[in-house]
């Protein structure tokens, strides 16, 4: 019914060089005993940093699903980040997150990943 963020989204390693499999973690709980949530990670379209799936496809958005309960729970999503077409030379990149609960309420989050050249 509603998702509560107990611990903000974090990325590890951070700073990082690319390509790298980044672990996104945060602690959540729900106002329900058990609630299915959908989590979208997205990157701005203009720059050259992308997500990459297991088949090597470059994407600007990744969607993951999870279930959270009423007790605080650490969720972990591992996503490979790499470089591709687009504006290069970033020092920091903002990874935006949208958490959608079972009733369609969207809770925002973000983490800034520092890129080492």
């Amino acid at each position: 019914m509603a998702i509560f963020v107990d611990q903000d989204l974090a990325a590890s390693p951070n700073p990082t060089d690319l390509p790298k499999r980044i672990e996104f973690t945060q602690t959540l709980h729900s106002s329900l005993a058990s609630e299915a949530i959908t989590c979208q990670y997205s990157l701005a379209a203009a720059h050259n940093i992308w997500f990459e799936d297991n088949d090597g496809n470059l994407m600007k958005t990744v969607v993951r699903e999870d279930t959270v309960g009423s007790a605080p729970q650490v969720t972990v999503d591992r996503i490979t980040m790499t470089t591709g077409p687009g504006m290069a030379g970033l020092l920091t990149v903002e990874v935006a997150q949208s958490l959608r609960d079972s009733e369609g309420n969207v809770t925002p989050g973000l983490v800034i990943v520092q890129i080492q050249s």
Partner: protein
Amino acid sequence: MTKRSGLVCLWWIASLFLAAGALRAQCTTPSGDTGFNDVIFTPTGGTFSTVLPFDVPVRICAEVPAGTTRATVKYAATDRKLGPIDVDPDTCTIRTPGIAWGPEFARVPSGNTVRWVIGRLEAERYYVFCFGFEKKATDEEIAAFRQSAAKVLDDALTQTTTGTLNADQTQAICQGLRAELLAATGATKVLTPGTIFDCDADKVAAFATEVTRGPLQAQLRAQVILAGRPNDDPNFAVPSLGQRQNDLQSILAALQADPSIAKLIDAIAQQSALDAAVSARAQSICPGCSALLGPGATPAARLALGEDATSTPGAPLTVQSQPSQAAAMSQVYAVTAKNFNDLANLIRWALSPDAPPGIAAALNDADRAALSALVTTPGPLAAAAGKANTLASLTQNLTNQLTARTQGIQALANELSIAAASLQLADASTLGNFVTNQKNYISLDAGLTWAPELEEVVPYMGTNIYFRPVNRNAPLRTLGNFRQTFSRRFSMTFGLTLSSIADETSNGGTQNDLFGNQSLMLGAGLRVTDSMRLGAGAIVFKEDDPSPLVNEQKLNTSYYLAFSFDIDVVSLFSKSFQTALGVSSSQ
């Protein structure tokens, strides 16, 4: 006090004054040879004690303000044709195009004076000097600065709206923050170097770690909660806080205007008045319903803003709001969400067989159907509770982000410190007045000249005119090689022989001196050492016309070679030598 004790007291006070005078060192021109050309800078007047010497090492002495821990001087120069340099007196920023400061000379003062050795100055230049006197800021100044620094960072950081930045953009943010900090502290203060606000390119990664991923990240999280975020997929679009509040307000207003709910609340109130058990039961199921519905309910608009009946209306939330405001809103939203759930339970109780007969009788079938629709799962009340809970979650998260941002900014401000520095400008030049210029350009020497054609060796005195200022106190060997010092060595010579070059006319001689017993020497000379010169040129004298029939004299010349000493050096020699050269001591 006795007369004797009064005398002792006077003596004691006088001693104190004397001691204070002895302790207070002053800049004075040294009497002996220090190896430097000393000039004194007077900060109050922004003047030097003399025209600046050139070609010799210059040492500047200045009295410094009390408490000065570091004193600096730097200078810039222009050619005399360009005139004085335009400098901002508050910041020592040079406004004249193409002119830049030279290296800075820094010294720790000794007592209340400081001396800098600044090397050699060029002749015929305008100079501008920037003196900096730094002292440690007082505890009060530092405390005030940290307070203002936190405010400056708070305001300036709001200008940044993204965490996706390249190195140049990150450095620009750093420089922007630094400029704001300096503006807040005033032009006479400098930030203590060594912090991330040096904004050096090699420190930009540290700035990103400490600021971009610190308070800026917290601010961006707060901004997205407040302003929302569009998304190509509408399922993941983030509504703004205002949109969410409007949605909640609509739901609340609809509930407060719902006739079936109004009928239920009236029925419960009537039955509660008649039966204390009904009142207790209704109160236990929904203790907050009176705030949500009925005549004593908080208006929907206020509840939607996260304000209860007792709250003072707050200003709209921004990233600079107090975290406590968002925390208070979060509590109200959480209570509202609970009230929605409790209302659903109250409706279920009223529709159940356990409901008191009076309440059941007050509701018709249409009311029952409408109320049943409200409490279905998922249904409108559950959705309303979800929205209120989401607002409670978001405002709680907002509280955390605003707190993290404030703490991050305060930590940055605590890292910063300041040093008070006063800047002082002084214009000066190596251009003297007319007399000085004459001294610069002209020298006197004395020596012997040999005219081979005339078979004469005679003493002479000459005036040497250089084509540039020459400081005779500057040893030639310290100024470079022969080629580099040629202009300081070469001069035109005008001289007079000091004894006659005439041959005995009674013995058939034909040459006579130009003036009485002296002839004119025109030529050029070259200093081979600081005091010794070799010269050559022509001696101008009079000669009888070769024709025995013509009784006239004509001007004639003959070349000469000369060897001379600088007149100052000559004066060091014995009086007998001067007498031999025919030079009086007064010359």
